[in-house]
């Protein structure tokens, strides 16, 4: 594995420890620096409040020239998250650049939670409810918030 990716991931980790963004934590697996576990706390004053959502980030040796693949491990109900937990987010695809580190990736996902984009849905049901029946959307989100505690 390229030492460049490894070194960069160690530096990402240090920064995440020294200047942790609010409501975010993450760390590489002890035996595999390319695989990270992270937790995003649901942002306050959103339906996701109080949720503790687990994610897995899989890097490869092309990092930071290529983005990691990121997915929610916790159950998620969100217009831009697929049923398998994968995300539909531009910076993880065609707007990736090496200026993003792990802290920035997780912060972007946290913002996505309270700022979904129902017009390019990964979960059509969530997108429709978000648009047309906000009350039911909130109820469904609260369900996954509760299940995130298990």
């Amino acid at each position, binding site marked *: 594995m390229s030492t*460049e990716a490894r070194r960069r991931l160690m530096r990402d980790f240090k920064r995440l420890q020294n200047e942790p963004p609010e409501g975010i934590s993450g760390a590489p697996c002890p035996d595999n620096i390319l695989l990270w576990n992270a937790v995003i706390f649901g942002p306050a004053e959103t339906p996701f409040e109080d949720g503790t959502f687990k994610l897995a980030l899989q890097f490869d040796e092309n990092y930071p020239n290529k983005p990691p693949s990121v997915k929610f491990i916790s159950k998620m109900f969100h217009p831009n998250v*697929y049923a398998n937990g994968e995300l539909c987010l*531009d910076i993880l*695809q065609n707007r990736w*650049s090496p*200026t993003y580190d792990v802290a920035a990736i997780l912060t972007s996902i946290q*913002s*996505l939670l309270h700022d979904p984009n129902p017009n*390019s849905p990964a979960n059509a049901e969530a997108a429709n409810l978000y648009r047309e029946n906000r009350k039911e959307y909130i109820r469904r989100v609260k369900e996954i918030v509760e299940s995130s505690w298990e």
Partner: protein
Amino acid sequence: MGGGEEPSREEIHDGSTTNQEENTNAQQNVESSPNLPEKPVNAEEDSSKETKKILDEKSNENTEGTNVEQAQPEIVDNAQAVSAPVTETTSVVNPSPGPVEAPKPEDTANKDAAHEDQVKFQQNLEYEISIKKEEAERTPLVCISEDIQKLYQEYEQGSDVYRNKIMKLAERHNKIRRCRGDGNCFYRAFGFAWFERILLSNNLTILRTALDSLIATKTLLKSSGYQPLVYDDIYDVVEEQMKAIERGERDDSMLLAIFQTDDISNHIVWYLRVITAAYLKKYRQEYEPFLEFETEMDQYCSKYVEVMDQEADHIHVIALTKALNVPVEIAYMSGSDTMEQVNFHEFYPDNEPAGGNITLKPLVLLYRPGHYDILYRKE
């Protein structure tokens, strides 16, 4: 810089692989132009234009090669990625409904049908993109220099306007060096021409001045808010190449080989991108008025400057030449027949460091709508 002046495909098609890329790039350029009026985001409207835009969007994504295998294909396949909320307000600026940005809310009646259409559409696009990608990759990142007659031959079946302009150009320029049309051509052409100029000058003052300018960019990046962790490693690669010239370990063929090597070449391109972005951020008050209404410079940079394969615009050229103190002249050659001459635009830095860049002759680039190559002036 407009795609309006782009020559038609037939006009410039002569079997040379670069032509197709020019078209692609011309459209990329249109798309990334900050000065474009906002367009309706409705997918049904103007679908042919949108097609091209999405295509370009996707081909950007794909030109990097390994990207596809590595980003999960399911994601790429069936949906449009959402703009990250951090960059969300810029999504209004970008007119295409491609993977990137959020279409405006529209009435939901035709939503599902429209979505299915989009999926089919997407599949066709991906096929086209793979063909375009193959074509682009036939051109090396930076090519061997060629006689300017080759450029003329490219238009033999095509437009008089171009041929006449090339004749004029050939009076003072004898060679052209092509760069791959992958959206990075400005940065790569600039980078190669700069390194080559330093190498061939064989002048220690020029080299030291360039090295000082390069070292100073670290301060610029930091003051513009970049974390050293994101650029340190890449900076080291670029500096090492400059120092290798100083140590006398580079000749012109070695330099070409380095710029043809994906890793090093793309590191240099990306570092030039981030210098450009840092400069634009530092002087945001000066440059923000050139952006689309209400676009914020940080968001603009994260979408159009820091990201590989995104075309460079006028302000990017200004920013990079000023940040590195490197004078550049760009020959603008369009199919417009109102001018017989090829127009040269001069981008000179504000302050030439004493005794330094005064002797660095300007780099000369050739711009055809959407694409940059390197030109060589007769000695």
